[in-house]
């Protein structure tokens, strides 16, 4: 095990523009191939922006409305973001719900590392935060929030992690991007954008809170 930090914080400026190898090297891609980060900025070479900041904002606004609709006004809803970027998305959704309904939804984070099915494939990784709102999740409608839905393995781990925390009345899933290629029978209840991708392609979600600017990028990375 080497000394590792939960997530490297990337400089806002492009580190090596147009060098996908460099990008892949400095980001810490999630085991399922999604996530990670590239230096912020409008679409580095080899990466195509598929969602603009405006579109991300609108997608989140729509999801917030859909959550309120599906849960009859958002009563008893708890938003749990999956680190790293899911947490920021969950906070944004909670704030939107607050704007629409007057009181923001309780929001927290759920680290799924200890429940992953691929732990033995890589060195032990640093844990990220799990924070459950004070009222807990028993009897609540938990909406899991993540940036990219890909194989579905992260969500499976999240369902197991939830099991240890309590017994929600229902669990739903909200993602900013659904890129397909599911390996488990899991689907999202709220989707910002359905993005057809090839398996070898990479999807990067960047958020202002963490990466300096909002964008969703699609690229082909040859290692």
């Amino acid at each position, binding site marked *: 095990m080497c000394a590792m930090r939960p997530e490297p914080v990337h400089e806002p400026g492009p580190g090596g523009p147009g060098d996908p190898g460099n990008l892949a090297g400095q980001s810490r891609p999630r085991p399922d191939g999604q996530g990670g980060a590239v230096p912020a900025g409008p679409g580095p070479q080899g990466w195509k922006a598929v969602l603009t900041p405006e579109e991300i904002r609108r997608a989140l606004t729509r999801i917030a409305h859909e959550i309120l609709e599906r849960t009859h006004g958002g009563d008893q809803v708890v938003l749990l973001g999956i680190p790293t970027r899911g947490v920021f998305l969950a906070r944004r959704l909670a704030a939107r719900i607050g704007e629409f309904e007057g009181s923001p939804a309780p929001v927290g984070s759920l680290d799924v590392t200890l429940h992953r099915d691929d732990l033995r494939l890589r060195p*032990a990784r640093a844990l990220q935060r799990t924070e459950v709102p004070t009222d807990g999740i028993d009897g609540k409608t938990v909406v899991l929030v993540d940036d990219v839905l890909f194989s579905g393995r992260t969500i499976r781990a999240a369902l197991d992690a939830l099991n240890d925390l309590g017994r929600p009345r229902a669990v739903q899933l909200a993602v900013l991007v659904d890129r397909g290629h599911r390996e488990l029978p899991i689907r999202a209840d709220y989707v910002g954008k359905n993005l057809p991708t090839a398996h070898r392609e990479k999807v990067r979600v960047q958020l202002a809170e963490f990466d300096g600017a909002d964008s969703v990028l699609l690229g082909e990375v040859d290692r």
Partner: protein
Amino acid sequence: MKRHLISAGDLSRDDAVLILDTAQELESVGGRAIRKLPTLRGRTVVNLFYEDSTRTRTSFEAAAKRLSADVINFSAKGSSVAKGESLKDTALTLEAMGADAVVIRHPASGAPHRLTNWVSGRVVNAGDGTHEHPTQALLDAFTIRQRLGGAAHMGTVPVGAGGGGGGGAGGADRRGQGLDGLRVTIVGDVLHSRVARSNVLLLSTLGAHVTLVAPPTLMPHAVEAWPCRSGYDLDTELRKSDVVMMLRVQQERMNAAFFPTIREYRRRYGLDAGRMALLPEHAIVMHPGPMNRGVEIAAEVADSARSTIVQQVANGVTVRMAVLYLMLGGATEETA
């Protein structure tokens, strides 16, 4: 981090902070209805104890079980060791049983190091002779960080409350922090203390200023080479300490006349209520246990609000979970 945990000196600052941060995350597990994680399912941890110990062995056992590892307890008493089996042969037996990690306590300094040559699993030193006890130092560092860490530079308050309640530390985020600038005084039988040695190495790595106070007969010979100061006058040091750590007078290792009487030791190096009053207001009192009440620490001090002794035991499980997770949780084959 190295493959085995033999000495607190093997840990870089980043390694140590990673262990403390992992422990901080795992702490909430102790406060949940279901105190179990599936992470080490199918891994086997052997507790190999050649010396009597209740808290360390049960602490490691609880830690391994909370991570769903299988635990085999192997104590020297009533085993093949009592029939004369050597450490090497015992190690080969464990190896044949497929131990992923061996937690060893041994009266001989260096035994865990020898063991690393004979087993393919990870080795965790749970105390060897008068050498080291690294997980004790880690839990002490964790307790200090929880109670005092970064009081001056407290981080952002997290959203919502902590996960499910564990943690006696007001919810301040101390992730990533060391113990920079804190003054820690370790008092007593430093000569025989593996706890003192490990703590000096780890706490100084984390940025604390450590001072050893002991009777001249119980101060190690080459203490000048250690990354700490040393002195003989307890009262002076107490006035400028954030943490005072009392060591047990190890009567079982006192095979010579190190001090005239218990009474004299207590008068010069024991911590009673009068001495505790010399400490700054925020200072805490630690003891690795088991205590000799009335010798190195007075009962009223041990039971005071400044005492972290019970908290240290609870943190022991958490920190050992972090160590086991980081050693066994990932791929077995990796570059160290």
